[in-house]
């Protein structure tokens, strides 16, 4: 079977959420001489792109998206050491966390999974984060984007405090927001650099902000 055929199969494994087969196919491709970069760019990422589009079109829902992301993650576990050894960088780094006072992490975790599934490195600092923790994590990891999550109308009011924390220190990193009660209007009012309604939109937003595809 040609590399091209195997890459198409790999894409389909991701789309269908077949994680065992996706790992096997990656190993087969590598064993037959395909470059790790090609496996990622021509097999895995096109599969995830289809998943994102189908989600936006209402043809796929979260359970299907999650199994696709799992298939991607399983394959990446094989690829990542090889990519690192070849000095291939991830598409970017995203720092993500739920804001102070909020213990909810369902939405944040879904965004993390989808970003990882689309080639980003994610630094997840968990829940209940005061501004100081975002700033410390920024200094340590130097992310390209910072994502704030909140499920509650009370805790989303802390988002501007975090944004102000970055701005007052002259840190130009884009800060994006999301969560059940958060809207585009609210994001604009608090000076966020972007708003995503769901995990798939969050990937698109980060792609746009970093001019990645």
């Amino acid at each position, binding site marked *: 079977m040609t590399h091209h055929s195997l890459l198409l199969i790999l894409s389909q494994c991701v789309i269908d959420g077949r994680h065992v087969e996706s790992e096997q196919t990656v190993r087969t491709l590598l064993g037959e001489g395909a470059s790790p970069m090609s496996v990622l760019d021509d097999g895995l990422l096109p599969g995830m792109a289809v998943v994102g589009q189908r989600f936006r079109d209402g043809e796929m*829902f979260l359970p299907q998206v999650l*199994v696709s992301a799992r298939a991607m993650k399983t394959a990446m576990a094989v690829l990542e050491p090889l990519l690192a050894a070849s000095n291939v960088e991830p598409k970017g780094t995203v720092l993500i966390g739920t804001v102070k006072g909020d213990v909810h992490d369902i939405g944040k975790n879904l965004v993390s999974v989808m970003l990882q599934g689309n080639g980003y490195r994610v630094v997840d600092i968990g829940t209940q984060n005061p501004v100081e923790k975002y700033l410390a994590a920024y200094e340590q990891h130097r992310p390209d984007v910072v994502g704030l999550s909140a499920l509650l109308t009370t805790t989303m009011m802390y988002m501007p405090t975090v944004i102000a924390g970055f701005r007052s220190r002259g840190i130009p990193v884009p800060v994006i927001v999301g969560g059940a009660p958060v809207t585009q*209007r609210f994001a604009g009012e608090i000076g966020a650099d972007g708003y995503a309604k*769901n995990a798939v939109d969050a990937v698109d937003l980060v792609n746009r902000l970093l001019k990645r595809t």
Partner: protein
Amino acid sequence: MTPRERVLAAMRREPVDTVPLMCQMSIGHMLQQYRCSPADFWHDVDTFADGLVRLRELYGFDGILVSLHGHDPSWRGGIASRRMTEEYEEIVWKNGDATHYLFDDLPEHIAARPRELPPVGEVSRNDLPAALDVIPVSQGLKFFIHPAHRFDIFRTLHDRTGGMYSLHGEITSPFDYYLDFVGYQEGLIGMIDAPETVAMIMGHYAELIEELAVAMCGEGIDAIKVSSPYAGSSFISPEFYAAFVLPHEGRIARAVRAQGTEIYTHTCGAVNDRLELMFDAGVSGIECLDPEPLGDVDLADAFRRIGHRGFIKGNIDSVTVLLQGTETEIEADVRRRIETGRAHPGFILSTACSIAPRVKREHVRLLRTLVDRYGGT
């Protein structure tokens, strides 16, 4: 009509003298208005009942939704220490857990030993609880149901209100119990990986919930709300809704209606693609119907599609309208919903989701004024 008669008539799609008004309030909002120890409000049946009664009076609602039941009268016996801080009231329990009771939102519970979630595919019937002893209120937060005091709250409220207002109980859907039991992400993946196990788990919970709901019907309530927040299109497809949610909610709906009690489903966010499906469970009505931008339901369209099948309770946006809007914006929005709804039998004006914690008192009181002004039929 008395307020109770008005709500009952609307739920039966019979004529009303004016559009009924009945909103569910978040715990945070109630605490902001009622002002008491948040731990007492959470645990003490008399305090909670008093809060419900006083806030109904304050806002002129035609009914009361009882979101928590099963208060343990001896809850103070489990306390190791209790203190008040600027941000919350803290209780450390004798078992090592701690709870932070916020003044404007749900409590946060910190378990001494986090529960290990079982892999979905490995769950057997023996792993499941034999009795329904908790309400999964929110992620990581449960309210314990005392088996000997499951419905004390309703008796207290009957004594306080004398049957003037429509009392509604609340139960949680089997889907929600399932996600709480196995974890949200794992639970959603499990629907693909292990659908038979998922059906077994939900079926088990449905059996327990049915028993609870039927017993609740004997407490003189007019209706039961089924809280099913994760069953919208932000989470699952209509096909999964039909396969995993409907059979179990349908079983509960049939059992409740056989008692002569009304039952309605509350699902958050985008549900426009499944309004008809929601009624396929055999419920008397549906609640919430979040409009844009938090959801995707247009009230007039909903009445055209499902108004003949039961009542609709909603659909004011509690966040972008009541919380963030001006009084002028609120009046324009709510008036439009009243005028749309009053043209049909079976409309109860309500916020879609609960009244958010920091919504101003004046904004909620405006709802009664607007119903009195525009809601006559």
